[in-house]
């Protein structure tokens, strides 16, 4: 009899607990606020949970518009545009722009120029910025490459000097950098559970309202579906891949928008996509591009030498290379045939 009683007690508890899960979900859905906007040449969606979400997301959206107006490489009134079109004369910039440019130059230095914020004229020659994509002639690329060198950019306090014929473009770091600033803003409003997508750059604040990790789908390169799911909290996740923006010529050759700064041609290092995971969106954004260009071996070396982030590489031989920090957090999709290799430090 006692055994039966205990069994009933346990079963009761299980029932009660499983129903309790229902209520938690309802409560969290009530405090969920969403906001979407077109900015920085992309589509952004912000989802926040908790009391001050409404006002926090409003401020976040306003902030994005504000910095977009400062950093846009195409907006004639932006600080970056003015610096690019001042014939090598200095331009006075805001603190926000100073911080961003400083960071971009620092990352260029740390990646030995693999991340090149002055590659814009070459990107333009390929038509990725104008919409009319084409393969430029070798000679044209060679001439343009003469004006690609981040070391010639001068940043002295609030004075930015872009030498004549050069163009600075913050495209590779701006979204990640903005994500970090918005995260700060949200936290200041007491938000401790939110998930932001800035054109596919993901930034997670805290965990889901129920305390579990956010589940982030990683797109399979060149396909519709997901490669698998990454479970994270309090982290940024940024992916770079050729499939994001590419064109095909008459012969079926594929050219994508991630260019190797040394050759001025699409980087072809054997990787289909690079996903970088870390606590800061700016780092993940900067590295996702750089590591894609570097290729698996060099990316592995960079990781071992620098640390401070985790990564998931997809090679053109259907291999997934994961760093040990996220090995437990990634689940390969059902029925997928990629092999998974874990990198250890």
């Amino acid at each position, binding site marked *: *009899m006692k055994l*039966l009683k205990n069994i*009933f007690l346990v*079963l*009761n508890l*299980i*029932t009660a607990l*499983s*129903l309790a*899960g*229902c209520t938690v979900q309802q409560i969290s859905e009530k405090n969920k606020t969403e906001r*979407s906007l*077109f900015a920085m*040449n*992309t*589509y952004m*969606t912000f989802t926040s949970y908790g009391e001050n979400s409404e006002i926090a997301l409003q401020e976040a959206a306003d902030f994005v518009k504000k910095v977009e107006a400062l950093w846009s490489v195409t907006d004639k009134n932006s600080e970056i545009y003015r610096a690019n079109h001042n014939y090598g004369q200095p331009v006075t910039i805001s603190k926000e722009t100073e911080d961003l440019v400083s960071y971009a130059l620092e990352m260029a230095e740390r990646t030995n120029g693999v991340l090149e914020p002055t590659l814009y004229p070459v990107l333009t020659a390929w038509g990725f910025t*104008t*919409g*009319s994509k084409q393969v430029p002639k070798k000679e044209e690329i060679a001439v343009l490459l003469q004006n690609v060198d981040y070391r010639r950019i001068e940043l002295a306090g609030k004075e930015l000097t872009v030498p004549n014929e050069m163009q600075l473009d913050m495209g590779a770091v701006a979204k990640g950098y903005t994500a970090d600033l918005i995260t700060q803003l949200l936290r200041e409003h007491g938000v401790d559970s939110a*998930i932001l*997508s800035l*054109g*596919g*750059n*993901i930034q*997670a604040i805290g965990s*889901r309202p129920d305390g579990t990790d*956010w*589940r*982030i*789908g*990683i*797109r399979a390169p060149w*396909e*519709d*579906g*997901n490669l698998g*799911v*990454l479970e994270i909290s309090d982290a940024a*996740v*940024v*992916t770079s891949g050729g*499939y*994001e*923006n590419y064109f095909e010529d008459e012969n079926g050759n594929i050219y994508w928008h991630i260019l190797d700064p040394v050759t001025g041609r699409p980087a072809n290092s054997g990787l289909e996509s690079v*996903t970088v995971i870390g606590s800061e969106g700016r780092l993940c954004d900067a590295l996702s591009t750089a590591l894609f260009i570097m290729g698996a071996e060099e990316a592995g070396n960079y990781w071992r030498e620098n640390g401070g982030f985790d990564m998931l590489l997809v090679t053109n031989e259907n291999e997934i290379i994961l760093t040990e920090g996220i090995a437990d957090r990634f689940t390969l999709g059902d029925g997928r045939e990629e092999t998974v290799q874990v990198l250890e430090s």
Partner: protein
Amino acid sequence: MKKKWPFIVVGVLLLFGMIGSFLVQRHPDTNLVEIVQDGQVLHRLDLTQTENQTIEVEYDGRVNTVEIKNHQIHMLEAECPDKTCVNMGWLNSAAPIVCLPNHLVIQFTDIPENIDAAVQ
């Protein structure tokens, strides 16, 4: 104990309760999608109920053609320089199909349970 039936009744009720509580929690992935332009929902459809069809949407004189086929949705054609939206294939997981120049978005109204966001 002389009378056993109260325990049997309670036991059966409990059993129903337990089964019920588990059933309540299983909700299927929804197939509701929205076609949104400049923040305005133009169309809301349940893919499971929709027949194969195409929907044309215009922005500034440029046309996007959305296709629903075999209960899936995608951008069939787009009058925009990039065609990024067309290359995104069939709508899946939490990543919307976006045509930036034409401010058009195709997305699930409810993100499928198993994914919170998709990194692209």
